[in-house]
């Protein structure tokens, strides 16, 4: 299990590149803009958490190239996270609070990360 997790974490190199671009963006903006650093920092963090991580965790289960993994994880994250938050709101009446958003992100990311194990347990004969 440990080896599997380590192996999967090894697939996070493209994610690191995306994070690097985000950090670079925050750095540039903090120098050239009047925006408070805390606003830029939390925006960067929110971008990685909301718009990259969940989609990335889902896509690492597919056999696609690093470029595709890094780029398509962004729209996929937006689609999946936003849709789930919306469905929880309209079907179960759960408000779109910070806790809902975080829980949705964590659930999607964890399911995506451990999908191979989950799938093998769910569908084993």
């Amino acid at each position, binding site marked *: 299990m440990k080896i599997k997790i380590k192996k999967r974490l090894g697939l996070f190199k493209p994610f690191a590149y995306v994070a690097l671009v985000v950090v670079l963006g925050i750095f540039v903006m903090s120098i050239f803009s009047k925006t408070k650093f805390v606003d830029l920092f939390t925006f960067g963090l929110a971008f990685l958490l909301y718009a990259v991580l969940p989609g990335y965790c889902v896509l690492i289960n597919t*056999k696609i190239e690093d470029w595709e993994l890094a780029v*398509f994880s962004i729209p996929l994250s*937006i*689609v999946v996270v*936003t849709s789930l938050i919306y*469905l929880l*709101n309209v079907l179960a009446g759960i408000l779109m609070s910070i806790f809902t958003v975080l829980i949705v992100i964590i659930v999607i990311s964890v399911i995506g990360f451990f999908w191979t194990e989950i799938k093998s347990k769910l569908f084993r004969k």
Partner: protein
Amino acid sequence: MKTKISKQTITIATFLVVIFLLFAGFAVRNGPFTDLDLSKDAPPVRTTHDAFYHSWVTKATSDQEDTRTWPGYLTQGVDSEWFQPPMLYVFASSFGKLTSMPTYQLFFVLMCLLGILIPLQIFVLFKKWFGTKTGIIGMALALFPTYNWLMFYVLGYYMDFLAFAVVPLGLFFTYQYFKTNTWGYGIGLGLIFGFSFLSHPFEAFFAGLNLLLVGIVLLVLRKWSFKHSIKLALWFILGFIIITAYYLPFFIEGYGAGGSAVSSYLSILGTPSSIPSYFWPATFHWFILGGIALSLIVLIMQYKKIIKDSNKLMLIIFIIIGAAFLLMLQAGFEGNRVMRYHFLFYNFIAFIPGIGIAALLKNIKHKLIHDGLILGGVVVLAILFMIPTYTQINNVNKNSMFTDDKWEAIRYIKDNTPEDSSIFYLYGYFHNFQAFSQRLSFNVDFGREYTTETYQTLCSGTMPEEYKGMFETLSYYKERSKLAVGRNSLFDFKAIDRPSEAITTKPLESFDYVVTQYTGTQIQPCIQFFAQNMVDRGYPVVYNNPTMLIFKVTT
């Protein structure tokens, strides 16, 4: 198999990062609007009512954390069903929960990011199907659809933007489904299309055409069986239904109902009248069309040299789609919906010319010149698109009638008065004040037929004791009560009357606060007479700035 990232790829990536930072730099700066301050809690873009409307609804969604009903202050406290396509607001407001950046600013930053995301996706698709160099050229051309990402600030089209932003992902999923025959891609495709639908149902129709054409061509060319097709259709429908089932009855019952009413609240803002003259710059129009024609000719000549056998399939797909959209253009989708073509013509504006230009450049054998031309071309394209856009935005912003002084008066009302306060706005901008201050307001806007007498009285030097005006509210449907096939499609909505919509006459004393613009109006002496009279009557001024005055009326 996952490929290792080579030195060449890193070089290209660095180049891309530089290009996109250039664009992002402009984007997050919000041009001339924010003065580089994204921490300011105010609507940064004050031009069209779309710019106000969508950022404001996002703010309202963020505040009430719910998309099932409209905010109470717009419906006079009556719970009213939410008929607007929700996804744009859910996306921006839920994203905003994780950052301290004010929602008004965040909304436009996110729109900018989508603008950058679209060409990035195009690059990856091109790279996959036609190679890296074609990918770079295609990306630069794909900036054409989004070259006016800054324009989104001043014009709107935000819902459309989000609806199209996921189309390249949809194309990728379609391709992957046929390649791997995995159910996940099928259901994902339905989700993506559903997401697009909930962002803008009509734009989703065009997005759907795009996906459908690719699907059909792949289906035929890969000789998939009827059984396979049905399987894909079922996965797709399942994904689509999961996400749209709740909203579909609203769409059938009255798409946009409610939204249009809120739009009218904001519709009197200073929309610049000169939009059409720069919206589709004539020079670029012909420049691009000429480029497409040239590229097509070259493409036909070079077809065999540049395209690998495995990629010919994709090329055929895009030629078919391009032709289909040209037919649609001929069918008359014109006018101010040009923005749609920017997205719909990805295939024709970006894909095919991208390959054509790559084919042309292939003739240049010297590697340095060859690569230099590609990179130089991308930079030139970026600059060509950016400069006129930026220049125009500076001009547009000067036309805005919504100033900081007005915003500060709104903020005073919102932050310092009880939520059930009744506000009387004299002169204008009632709609903006009601929406942003989140207080019910009495409409005595200058220039309306029923307010003529009031302003004539004021200008003749007499203080009216009563004022004719109206509350405008938003209440269409209270609840989706039961399943009933018939009058209201699938569901029966309980319609309710708009309360207090009629024109009424109210004495000044019936309001809690009076807000008035005493400078910069067409009837400045009349308003100043009113203000002086209020002071003489002993009503305290609780807030003032060089433009606005706020009186407290009730004790």
